[in-house]
């Protein structure tokens, strides 16, 4: 009744995975460019006149937009359940980051302690990852 065999087109999961691999490659490349730019700048005593240094910093600055574009493409390729999972994870991460930012403002002004900005990034990404993992595990362990 149902013909079996290899599909003519790659499955949705394969298409999403392909984009995710591109995101990982681009992220690694961005990190590499960042490291090279930092090394060149430190060797040239932070001179902004160095062409290569300025060029690499420019490339490094643009790369997050490329990564964001790829991530959006991956989201568009996902099926409705995966999209919903991503939306919930992003919402949770946003709320956690905003709460942390609010707490950070209070701590910074009340105790005169400046929290590093990367801690907000780390918390947001951790909250996002936790929400995605939790959602995936919950989907697997549904009620029979």
């Amino acid at each position, binding site marked *: *009744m*149902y013909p079996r065999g290899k599909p003519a087109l790659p499955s949705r999961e394969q298409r999403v995975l392909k984009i995710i691999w591109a995101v990982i490659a681009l992220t690694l490349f961005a990190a590499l460019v960042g490291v090279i730019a930092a090394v060149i700048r430190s060797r040239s005593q932070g001179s902004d006149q160095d062409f290569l240094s300025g060029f690499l910093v420019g490339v490094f600055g643009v790369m997050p937009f490329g990564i964001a574009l790829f991530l959006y493409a991956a989201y568009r390729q996902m099926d409705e359940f995966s999209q919903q999972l991503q939306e919930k994870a992003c919402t949770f991460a946003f709320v956690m980051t905003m709460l942390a930012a609010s707490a950070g403002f209070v701590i910074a002004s009340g105790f005169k302690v400046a929290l590093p900005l990367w801690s907000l990034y780390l918390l947001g990404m951790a909250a996002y990852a936790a929400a995605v993992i939790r959602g995936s595990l*919950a*989907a697997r362990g549904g*009620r029979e």
Partner: protein
Amino acid sequence: MNEGWWGVNNHIKALRAHHNLTQAELAERLDVSRQTVNALETGRYDPSLPLAFKLARLFGQRIEEIFNDDGVLE
């Protein structure tokens, strides 16, 4: 029959078994991930109308024959 979070039941698992399809094969025909098929079968996720129509067409049944809320949503 598997009951969803909002009281919507479905027969997807039984229909899939009846048509001798694996979760991966059903996912491929619906153009969704296997995780989505699993979530549907275990009642963790209620599909959108387009996906419900796709399922109905694939199994040759009406939507209300596959999904049943037993009057809970009235």
